[in-house]
Each structure stands twice: as structure tokens, then as C-alpha cells.
């Protein structure tokens, strides 16, 4: 018997459920293989080299881009668009929607992004450098590639979707923000089906590596698979990753009417802002964000079975999040805490939605995947309930709380319930 959340008291037309999952992660190109990698400790971090910056590490995806796009579309579009097209098509396929007969004007696309346009701008500057910076050699494709709605718009073009499409720029909180936006638009009856989540192409911009490096926040390690190590005393920064995870969201009434399989219900969410620093997190505001999501869901902290942390492997970021979590969950004996970035690195705009997807399977298999690479737990991060290095079986999983935080002090939390 699941302890009821507030959502369960709402009419079905206001309850938002997940009915499809499409993803590409550095260690899996569908939900099942991603889960299998997380339960078997398989990292997706590899050696990587990028123009100007040189050798580094990254989470790299190897999904089959031509499954849903022609070579010409790939040439014309962006990597973020391609990640979006792949994951949106996979999500719709997974949802079992009778896509040929879906009213595409009632489908909305809401894609969270950390940034967009850096990759394409760097590429053009690199090209015109070969022509002594002659701007007449600057591509006419630059603008359609770099408009902020590009990743969502490419999905719309590819799938013939004529409802609303846009991206949600929310730094590394964007994956959750995309999901929240989709739910809100469904509740407002702006669409019947929302394709929502986040994407990232960030490993293709040297600037992100160079900037993290200048900030002393880029991870290094002789063994790439051990470089992303949140909560460990030897953590030394972020591993940048690409990836994407988009969900099919529907109102429960809509999902029931078509007999859809349901993977979880969005029972609570919150977004707030630190308003204290460009990059440094604020644990007080993070805890407020978590509490606000719990309050809206009418859940107590000890009703959360899994907390999926945002921790990126930076020295201060991890301990600050742990301060916030200790404040909210410190007394909870049954709440497990894990981290998915330890496997795949930081997938930026996709992080929130991918990390949630990694945990969603727990409703069914009742296993909590671990945080890997913790050889020596940092005492500042020693939260009760941390699942370290090996998966842990539990009696049941009813509620998962997913944290995603970003620069400029944006915090986002979603709570998903089993249904």
C-alpha cells in the first residue's frame, strides 16, 4: 500500500504520469541497457580530445543517429538536435502511442538545456579562421543551428509535431525543469502529450572544458572510469558528458483511456533560486527547494525511498548538497541516497532527466543503484542511507526524489511516485 501523496487526491485530468522513456547515456542507449549498466557498475567515461583544449575525459554517447535521421539532416542540424530527435522518437516508441493517429497539434515539446549554440559558434569561428576571418565564409546554417529552441525544433521537424516547442534554459537544473514545464502545460490543457526532459551536446564545445579547468573544477584521473567520484575524498571535479533523456508525459485520464503502461507519476516538484552567487551553491536554498517539493506532494521526508543527488564531484558542491540533504533527510532511516554522475559524468541539461530515468526502474526491480568510485567517503558527505559502490535491494520503492541544481543558483526538485 503506497502512502498517498497530494497528487493521488487530484482528479485524473490533473495527475501527470510518465508513459514513455527515450534516452541516450554514455553507458546505454535505451532505458533497459542504461539500467543494466548502473546495476553492474559500468561507467561511460572515456578518454576524449577536443580542439584547442587537447586531451581530457568525457561521457560520450554512441547512439545510432541515422535510426531516425538522414545523413543530410545530421549535417544540417546540431548534435543536441540529433540527441533530441533520437530520444524523442525512442520515447514515443516506448510509450506505445499509436503515433500515426496522434493529433500532432496536441503534442508539446519541452527540452531542458544548460546551454546551446556554443558548439556551433566555435565551429564557425574555426572555419573562418582558415579564411583569415572572412565572415562571408560564415555558414548560413549558423542561425537555425544556434537559435535557443533548436533542439526542440529539430524534434518537431523530424516528427511532424505542430504543437508548441521550445527549450528551457536552466543550467544544470534543466532536465528537471523540462519535465516540470511539460507537466504544467498538460495541466493547463495546452497539449495532450508532452515530450519533456533534457538534452546536452556540451562535450563538443572546448569552452566548457576550458572554463571548468580554469575554475579548477574539471576532473582528472589516470583511469577514466574513476574520474567522476562524487562524495569521495579524492574527487577533483566534473567529467563533462553528452546525452539526453526525454519522457512522454500524459494526464492520467489520457493514459488510462488508451491503456498505457505507466512508469511513474509526477507527484511533486519545485524550482527556486539561491540569489547568492554565480557558481557556488547555497545549501539553505537547496533544502528549501526540497522541502517545497515535499510540501506540494504532501509527503514527509521519511516517505522518500530514494534521493537521486545532483552532486557533480566538485569539492564544495558535493558537501554543500550533503549539508542540504542532512538538514532534510538526516533523521530518515529508510531513505537511500545515490548518485548517477559517478557512472556517466555530468550530462548538463540532460543530467536531471537521465539521472531520474536511471532510478525509475527501482519501482519495479526494488534495487537502488549505487554511487560508484567512493574509495574513501568524505566525512562531510557521510549521509545516512548513502548507497556506495554496490547496488542495494530494498523491500519497496514508492517515491523517488530527484535533485538537479545549476549555475546562477537555480535549484530544481521532482518527486516521482509509483503508480
Amino acid at each position, binding site marked *: 500500500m503506497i502512502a498517498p501523496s497530494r497528487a493521488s487526491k487530484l482528479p485524473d485530468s490533473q495527475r501527470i504520469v510518465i508513459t514513455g522513456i527515450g534516452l541516450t547515456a554514455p553507458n546505454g542507449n535505451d532505458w533497459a541497457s542504461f539500467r543494466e549498466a548502473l546495476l553492474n557498475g559500468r561507467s561511460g567515461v572515456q578518454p576524449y580530445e577536443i580542439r584547442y583544449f587537447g586531451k581530457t575525459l568525457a561521457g560520450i554517447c554512441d547512439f545510432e543517429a541515422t535510426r531516425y535521421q*538522414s*545523413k*543530410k539532416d545530421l*549535417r544540417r542540424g546540431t548534435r543536441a538536435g540529433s540527441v533530441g530527435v533520437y530520444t524523442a522518437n525512442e520515447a514515443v516508441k516506448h510509450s506505445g502511442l499509436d503515433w500515426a493517429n496522434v493529433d500532432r497539434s496536441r503534442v508539446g515539446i519541452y527540452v531542458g538545456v544548460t546551454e546551446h549554440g556554443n558548439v556551433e559558434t566555435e565551429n564557425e569561428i574555426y572555419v573562418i579562421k582558415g579564411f583569415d576571418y572572412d565572415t562571408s565564409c560564415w555558414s*548560413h546554417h549558423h542561425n537555425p543551428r544556434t537559435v535557443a529552441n533548436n533542439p526542440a525544433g529539430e524534434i518537431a521537424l523530424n516528427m511532424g509535431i505542430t504543437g508548441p516547442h521550445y527549450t528551457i534554459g536552466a543550467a544544470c537544473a534543466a532536465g528537471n525543469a523540462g519535465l516540470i514545464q511539460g507537466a504544467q502545460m498538460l495541466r493547463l490543457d495546452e497539449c495532450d502529450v508532452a515530450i519533456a526532459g533534457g538534452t546536452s551536446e556540451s562535450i563538443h564545445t572546448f569552452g566548457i572544458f576550458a572554463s571548468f579547468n580554469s575554475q579548477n573544477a574539471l576532473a582528472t584521473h589516470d583511469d577514466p572510469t574513476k574520474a567522476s567520484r562524487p562524495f569521495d575524498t579524492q574527487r577533483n571535479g566534473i567529467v563533462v558528458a553528452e546525452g539526453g533523456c526525454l519522457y512522454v508525459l500524459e494526464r492520467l485520464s489520457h493514459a488510462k483511456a488508451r491503456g498505457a503502461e505507466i512508469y511513474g507519476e509526477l507527484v511533486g516538484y519545485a524550482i527556486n533560486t539561491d540569489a547568492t552567487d554565480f557558481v557556488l551553491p547555497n545549501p539553505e536554498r537547496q533544502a528549501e527547494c526540497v522541502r517545497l517539493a515535499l510540501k506540494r506532494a504532501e509527503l514527509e521526508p521519511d516517505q522518500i525511498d530514494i534521493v537521486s543527488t545532483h552532486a557533480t564531484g566538485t569539492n564544495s558542491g558535493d558537501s554543500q548538497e550533503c549539508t542540504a540533504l542532512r538538514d532534510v533527510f538526516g533523521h530518515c532511516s529508510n531513505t537511500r541516497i545515490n548518485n548517477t554522475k559517478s557512472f556517466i559524468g555530468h550530462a548538463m541539461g540532460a543530467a536531471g532527466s537521465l539521472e531520474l530515468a536511471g532510478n525509475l526502474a527501482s519501482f519495479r526491480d526494488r534495487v537502488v543503484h549505487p554511487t560508484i568510485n567512493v574509495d574513501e567517503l568524505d566525512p562531510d558527505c557521510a549521509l545516512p542511507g548513502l548507497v556506495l559502490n554496490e547496488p542495494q535491494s530494498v523491500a519497496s520503492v514508492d517515491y523517488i526524489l530527484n535533485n538537479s541544481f545549476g549555475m546562477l543558483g537555480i535549484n530544481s526538485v521532482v518527486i516521482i511516485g509509483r503508480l
Partner: protein
Amino acid sequence: MTPAEIRDEIIDILDDISPDEDLENLDDDKAFREQLELDSMDFLDIVMELRKRHRVQIPEEEYGNLASMSSTVAYLEPKMKDIVKS
């Protein structure tokens, strides 16, 4: 470049722009658009590639010369005859 070399160059550019198309059976006297899925952005790619590869400038009012392979080669021949194929 000879007309044949210019034609080869255009085929090479089209292969880059439209990698999914079969260019083997292209009819030189038929409009590109009747045979290939090319839109205005693709035609701008042809213009851009000629600029980048050979510094050939094509004014907008002369884009119409790029309608078919035959008309393209005939139009480019005086502009590219002194270029040595590398």
C-alpha cells in the same frame, strides 16, 4: 579547370550537401530540384562551398544559373578556367 573537372567538383559538393542522394544517374540537362531534394539553403551551400574552395563569388542575381548541372558548368567555366585542379 576544364568543364569536366568543374562538373566533378560540383558532384563532390553535392555529395557533401546531400549525402543520401544517388548522384550517379544525374541528368545534366534537368533541373537539380526536379531530381534531388534541394532547398534554398542547399543552394546557398553550393555558393558557399565554391567561395570557400575556390574563392569564386556568385552574386545573388546570378543564382539562377545554378539550376541544372549543364547551366552551372557553363556559368562557372569562365570563372574557373584559370583555376588549377589540385
